[in-house]
């Protein structure tokens, strides 16, 4: 990643085909404007491509588990709907809030997003103030950890009621689905912590890409959580 040069203002002003030289050149001229997801230089663009495709197996994992959920429920007469803790609603709110704060961080980290509103190229803010981004990233991390702690607390409440993993298929699936989601979100927390450390002193193109890529994953895990809630609500 060290080979990335800072984004050149000229690239944006020259338009999308402005740096054709990079096509057959020496391989070091880099791409165009870094802030534009569609024109990232290669070492960064592969992270975008990668994260989108990485969501596919995760979708399949949850599809497999939730189809097992629906089938197992419809198949037998031993399924007893469980009353899950109200704490989950608060946890959901925390997770949704974390998506919002991460989106704020992402917007604050994007120079071209602001450039759209400026009148001349001279006002472009190439290196946004890192502290603002950092603040919002830290908030997101805190909310993510709060969500995980909340989930743990919800489990504890269930255990206190005598609802264990093997109590009933409904509780088995509840634990499996929430645990699988929590493990994935924990991965997101680790990734986001790494990105935050990367943006600690100065916001470089790789750090910006990191925020965007971690953001895609984070919002996705948020959407998976909503999906799981709906599944548990609609097929209790």
């Amino acid at each position, binding site marked *: 990643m060290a*080979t990335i040069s800072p984004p050149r203002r000229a690239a944006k002003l020259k338009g*999308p*085909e402005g*740096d*054709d030289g*990079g*096509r*057959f*050149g020496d*391989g*070091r*001229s*880099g*791409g*165009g404007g870094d802030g534009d997801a*569609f*024109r*990232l*230089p*290669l*070492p960064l*663009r*592969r992270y975008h*491509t*990668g994260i989108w*495709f*990485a969501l*596919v*197996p*995760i979708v*399949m*994992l949850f*599809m*497999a*588990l939730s189809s*097992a959920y629906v*089938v*197992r429920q419809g*198949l*037998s*007469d*031993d*399924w007893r709907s469980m009353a899950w803790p109200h704490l989950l609603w608060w946890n959901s709110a925390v997770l949704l809030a974390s998506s919002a704060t991460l989106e704020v961080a992402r917007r604050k980290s994007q120079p071209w997003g602001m450039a759209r509103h400026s009148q001349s190229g001279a006002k472009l803010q190439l290196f946004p103030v890192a502290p603002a981004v950092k603040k919002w990233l830290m908030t997101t991390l805190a909310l993510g950890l709060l969500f995980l702690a909340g989930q743990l607390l919800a489990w504890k409440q269930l255990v206190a009621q005598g609802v264990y*993993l*093997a109590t009933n*298929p409904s509780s*088995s699936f509840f634990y*499996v689905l929430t645990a*699988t989601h929590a493990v994935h979100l924990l991965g997101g927390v680790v990734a986001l912590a790494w990105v935050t450390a990367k943006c600690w002193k100065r916001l470089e193109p790789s750090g910006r890409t990191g925020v965007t890529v971690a953001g895609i994953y984070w919002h996705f895990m948020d959407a998976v959580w909503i999906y799981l809630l709906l599944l548990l609500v609609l097929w209790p």
Partner: protein
Amino acid sequence: MPEAARTQVEHPAHAAPAGFIRKYIFSLDHKVIGTQYFFLALFSVFVGIILSVLMRFHLVWPQAAIPGLGALAPTGAAGGVMTPEFYLSLMTIHGTIMVFFVLTTAPQGGFGNYFLPIQIGAADMAFPVLNMLSFWITFVGLIVLLAAFVVSGGAPLSGWTAYPPLSAIGQIAGPGQGTGQTLWILSIALFTVASVLGALNFIVTTIDLRAPGMSMMRLPLTVWAWFITAILGLLAFSVLLAAGILLLLDRMAGTSFFIPAGLVVNDQMLLNHQGGSPLLWQHLFWFFGHPEVYIAILPGMGAVSQILSTFARKPIFGYRAMVYALMGIGFLGFMVWGHHMFMSGMSPYSALVFSVMTMAIGVPSAIKTFNWIGTLWGGNIQFTTAMLFAIGFVSLFVTGGLSGLFLAQPSVDIYFHDTYFVVGHFHMIMGVAAIFGIFAATYFWFPKMYGRMMNEGWGKLHFWITFVGVYAIFTPMHLLGVVGSPRRYSQFTEYDFLKPLAGVHEFITIAAFITATAQVVFLFNLFYSIWKGRKAEINPWHCTTLEWTVPSPPPHDNFGGRPPTVYHGAYEYSVPDAKADYLMQTDAARLPALKH
């Protein structure tokens, strides 16, 4: 996406490592990782072959002692005579190791890793660290699987499909169903994670790291095959992971996902389970399991297309049709898992749908077969060892595919399902056809990997014994199935109705011994040629693709920091005005008659 962005040539290169460990053990270089995968698969395939020879021996001479086996497995094979349970554990590990650690590993992880980046003009995979991780997780998975042999109770008995309830209820179901089965699940879970990481790498590399001018329709068919295989892997493996998690919980946490109520096993009633469905496992498993068949065979199809075209000195017949057929096979592969479950009592209407979809796979498969024959037709064919194995692949693919049409009929499958007909069918098409693809690829790419040639004489000897051998082993199995010889039995001598078939089983066993022994020729050829083989030129086969433009073996970053520019498709053979009879993909000369 704008052309300029797509063809950016800045690569995620990393510096050449200096120390032995970073260079050969924990290497980030896709070529080293590909080689590691290749040798992991080579080790695994010989373990798998030894297991199958032991099984064949026991099937025919169940009372005879196998020298040394008693010492290796004092409980399972006391005095060298194996118990039926031990036979089943050999069968389980044979199937698992062959399907996962050979057929999935060698063509994709091995050759794909080594040659995909070079063939598209990249310096390495998109995520080298992830690539290293996939290999080492696979490695740990293999160790965990083999460890099942040495834990108490030994290896599991439930086959490579691990059907519950047998696989879900633990030690009570037999030796090996305790710790052994748990290790099996852990091994497969590791394998799925590694395969997903690998697949992700292949996809991103193919999309983002192609050299200037390397449009999708100029990709060699090998790259298309690896790319589509990776997409299948991305979609299929995590479903198996989900199933594995649920199975593990049934075993260890007392849940009832797959275990029904009132189960009586070995005269004991299982009281703490109820309501689970063994069929749920079958659905999840085969949703992965059928695409897995194509994960094993598609890379072979890619390599065979490349090799047939090169040694027929003709452009591949119907390039686009070949690409769309690969996509069609991949897509249909997700629609047909139910054909493994015709015996499960599914609705005849579901069976009809699965049956029709299964036969529909015959269409893209036939397109590929006819295009391969069309490529050979009128070609200036050079019968190198690689070419012989490629033609052998086509032969086995046709033979194995035709018996698939029988099994696709629910009414016929119900009769054949638990007989040797199925064993013959899947070994033909998934086993040896894919293995022939791996052999063809090995003989073809060896000069690039080691800068030396393999011995053609030994190679042809290896081919002919193997080719005749696999037909001698697996064709009679179809006949055994037709007359009702059941599979998964550890011995046949105790059943009167099977006694007339003893001679056929004996013939198969002898053919298996000879064919297995012939693989030593390959092994010797391989290792001898690595160090002592004749020096190879850069492009000994006069092939057009990018890997033949770089030195053998290729340098650390493949193209020395100067990515190639591509002007042609991958199959410009017998070009009228060319200096040689072919045009490299990098040759700047324009074709007057062809528009690309």
